């Protein structure tokens, strides 16, 4: 059972790391601020979510697992609202000089 959980954790963590990699590739390659914002907020948060899901079996108790989920939900809330405001700033700034 524990070997199965470890396998699940490994797969989820590798997928999460891959999403972080995808996010940073997007950051490097996308042409303007608004699309870079896409890569930052979406890919990185999915990566974080997969890492949190992967760590759930390793948490000591149900309470600890709930705390991990709370971290992810909090980051989602912050990223979505802050992302909106960042997009507004980027749009006002206009095309890159």
């Amino acid at each position: 059972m524990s070997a199965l959980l470890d396998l699940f954790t490994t797969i989820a963590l590798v997928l999460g790391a891959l999403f972080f990699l995808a996010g940073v590739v997007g950051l490097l390659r996308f042409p303007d601020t608004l699309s870079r914002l896409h890569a930052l907020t979406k890919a990185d948060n999915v990566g974080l979510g997969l890492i949190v899901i992967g760590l759930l079996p390793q948490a000591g108790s149900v309470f600890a697992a709930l705390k991990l989920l709370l971290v992810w939900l909090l980051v989602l809330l912050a990223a979505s609202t802050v992302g909106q405001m960042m997009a507004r700033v980027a749009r006002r700034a206009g095309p890159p000089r």
Partner: protein
Amino acid sequence: MSLTYVLESVLALLVLGAAAWTIAARSAFAAAVGFVSYGLLLSLMWVQLAAVDVALTEAAIGGGLTGVLLLGAVATLRGTEARTNRRPALPLRVLAAACCVLVSVALAVVVLTLPESGPTLAPQAVAALPATGVGNPVTGVLMAFRGFDTLLEKVVLVLALVGVWSLAPDRYWGGHPGLEHRLPADGVLPFFARTLPPLGVLLGIHLMWTGADNPGGAFQGGTVLAAMWLVVMMAGVRDAPAIRELWLRLSLVSGPVVFVAVGLAGMLTAGAFLAYPIAIAKPLILLIEVPMLLTIALALGLLVTGPPERTADPR
């Protein structure tokens, strides 16, 4: 070479890189961003070194609050920054670099040549911990063994705030800090300022409460509370209070006053200033920590908002 070693080396290089970038940045705003990055990376380092209390404080103060304080300074200096000739002469910069290198080398030599088991009071502190009623050795040291230092820190915090207030022009004394933030009430930022702070307040109180037995404490909790209050003020949901308000001033001094009162009571009940009778040590520590939380939250929040820039509303 273990992977943990690789991780720690990567982190160390990141921290140094962030510091170098902060110094080399062209504009003050970029430097403030670099400083916040440096603080956040440093807190990661502390967790890797298993110093979670320090990591909490670094994330809260270094990563968030000081960075925003610097941003406020950047905004105030925006007009003059473009006009001043910012680069000092080359000999001065070489001298500054030489002094920094000298200090860094001296620190590195000292740290690297420390004996394996240097002189430390940690075992005695941990052994005496059960008498204080708390389980976290850091809290035991801060609130019981070195309580006097913590008391003086809080007094210094209030004095620093008075110093910041004294920068206000005479006509604004007693007024509201900062300019008024006017934002449409249904915008994104006011929405965020209504959803995030309740969670933040819960976290701040949790950090103070859990500091008795786990990493945490009133200082970290107070900093999170101050950050949430600043979010509310930055979004225009609530205005900064006028500094002549009585409730504000009473709450600001409540922390140090209660601390001193408990200390004086200790002279009567346990024989020395700031001595706690063993039976009620933990309740006393909690009694001190609650007003301290309020003082820290208010003082840090007001330090960031700065001196009054508007007159108070006429009574």
